[in-house]
């Protein structure tokens, strides 16, 4: 894969300090930490109307858009500059965690559950409309990271708990940049392995990714620790083909084979089908559906209605689609693994379409709402006694002409579908030699079904209300 001269971000002028200076991550975290504090304060004490509060505007409009942009253009930059890790890292200087993360939790089950819980809370408490809940969410992240990582060794919060981190890591499989070894030969003669064990005060990889065996971006927070620990300056931020790691079948350091892990499979399922579900929650037909459900069950409890939708979208639909495809695949190819094992092998193939859907959705809000930060900024500054009344507060147009958004979204979905098709095809050809084209067809149909629903969802009119009032 290294035929082309590798591009290394850390060798670019202006970015070298990232690799050389030990406090580089700290420096990146500080501004985000300050911003987080501002949002928490504003969210708790400011106007409780979402468009008037920096917590809701920045988190749900700007942050989500920037997040996807950064992931697709560079890599997991949010985790690199993660503000939640700042108090945690400071605490680690005095508190040496005593416990080991329990073995039965060393997997993604918990994180997958928390991701579902987060999606559920997002709809149930209308997080997007609530500055107060948004602030509470931020505070919970800080508290959980601090609590878990001051008690347990390594970085269990990032690796096994943080739902946001899982979202970022899964998305970063399509990033063009990864933390990787510059010259593999150098590692073969290395006796100290500082990149994993650390040296002096500098920890090695707390997510237990051993550089010479690391494959791709999964589980990597781009924290730069390994880069600072390597005494031979042999680790960089190298360019690679986006998505390349989804085709790799090598065991991954600190992870193993994702193709054989049901917990990883579930996490990817929640991520991918969650992308469709999250978009479904904001369009007009969802309310007709709620009304229909209400008449069917004569229950108006919002929690109940939401649970029905969640079970349909995250359990029944994927089970039918993936189970059906796996069953057909087995019939056609004569492959004799259990259905679950087959689904596990194919699941990573659906990540691109999930990433495409998240991007298409968040890009919409980002483009429409980009300038809505101005009125919020203006009133915050006014409160601090700074007059910025020249800043426009009304007549704010989208970042790019609105007519361009839908074609862009369609392009994203198409691109994601093509990548998904390629990866599932590659999986098919590696695990069966029998009637490969026919065996691949069921998976292709699932991709078509998902792309179709994604396009339909994106073409629907947005309808932004909490279902309580609906």
């Amino acid at each position: 894969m290294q035929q082309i001269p590798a591009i290394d971000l850390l060798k670019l002028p202006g970015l070298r300090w990232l690799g050389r200076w030990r406090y580089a991550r700290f420096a990146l975290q500080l501004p985000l930490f300050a911003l987080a504090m501002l949002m928490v304060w504003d969210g708790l004490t400011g106007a409780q109307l979402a468009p008037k509060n920096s917590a809701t505007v920045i988190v749900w409009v700007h942050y989500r858009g920037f997040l996807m942009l950064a992931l697709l253009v560079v890599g997991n930059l949010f985790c690199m500059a993660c503000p939640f890790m700042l108090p945690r890292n400071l605490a680690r200087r005095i508190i040496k965690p005593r416990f080991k993360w329990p073995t039965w939790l060393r997997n993604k089950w918990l994180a997958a559950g928390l991701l579902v819980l987060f999606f559920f809370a997002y709809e149930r408490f209308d997080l997007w409309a609530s500055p107060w809940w948004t602030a509470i969410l931020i505070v919970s992240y800080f508290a959980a990271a601090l609590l878990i990582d001051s008690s347990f060794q390594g970085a269990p919060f990032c690796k096994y708990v943080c739902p946001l981190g899982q979202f970022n890591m899964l998305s970063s499989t399509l990033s063009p940049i990864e933390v990787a070894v510059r010259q593999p030969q150098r590692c073969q003669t290395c006796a100290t392995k500082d990149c994993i064990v650390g040296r002096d005060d500098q920890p090695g990889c707390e997510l237990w990714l051993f550089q010479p065996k690391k494959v791709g971006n999964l589980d990597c927070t781009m924290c730069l620790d390994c880069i600072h620990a390597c005494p031979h300056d042999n680790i960089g931020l190298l360019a690679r083909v986006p998505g390349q790691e989804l085709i790799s079948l090598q065991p991954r350091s600190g992870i193993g084979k994702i193709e054989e892990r049901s917990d990883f499979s579930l996490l990817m399922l929640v991520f991918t089908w969650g992308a469709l579900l999250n978009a479904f929650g904001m369009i007009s037909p969802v309310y007709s559906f709620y009304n229909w459900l209400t008449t069917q069950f004569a229950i108006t409890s919002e929690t109940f209605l939401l649970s029905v939708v969640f079970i349909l979208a995250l359990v029944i639909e994927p089970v039918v689609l993936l189970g059906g495809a796996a069953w057909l695949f087995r019939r056609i190819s004569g492959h004799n693994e259990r259905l679950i094992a087959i689904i596990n092998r194919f699941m990573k193939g659906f990540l691109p379409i999930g990433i495409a859907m998240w991007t298409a959705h968040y890009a919409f809000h980002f483009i429409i709402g980009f300038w809505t930060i101005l009125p919020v900024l203006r009133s915050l500054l006014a409160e601090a006694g700074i007059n910025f009344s020249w800043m426009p507060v009304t007549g704010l147009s989208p970042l790019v002409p609105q007519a361009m958004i839908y074609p862009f979204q369609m392009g994203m979905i198409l691109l994601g579908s093509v990548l998904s098709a390629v990866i599932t095809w590659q999986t098919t050809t590696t695990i069966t030699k029998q009637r490969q084209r026919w065996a691949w067809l069921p998976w292709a149909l699932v991709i078509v079904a998902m792309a179709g629903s994604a396009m339909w969802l994106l073409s629907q009119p947005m309808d932004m209300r909490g279902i309580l009032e609906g």
Partner: protein
Amino acid sequence: MLFRYGQLILLSLMFLSLLGCSRTPSDDPRLLMSLEQTPNAMGIQTIVLVINDGSTPLDNAKVQIEATMTHAGMPSQIVQMQALGAGKYQASIDFSMLGEWVLIVNVTEANGAVMQRTLPAFNIQ
């Protein structure tokens, strides 16, 4: 070193929470406001706001209305309302998206008194 950080964070949090005391704009309960008709369909609509000061209609005030959604991310529209007399003020608003909308009224009375009120949210469907 660490303790200084901790103290700094704590101090700034305390400072911030103090600042929080007077953060919402003032409302004047004396003024009674209601919409002649609550908008409920998409598109451009003319809304009429009736303002009373106790039992007398409030005229000669400057009334500005801001239409926005209860979710973040939709640019708001701010327009000056046109006085119709008898305490009535009128403006056209483009309800360009389905969902929950909210109107914020800013009133500047003839004597210079200023107040702001957020009217109850309603659905455009």
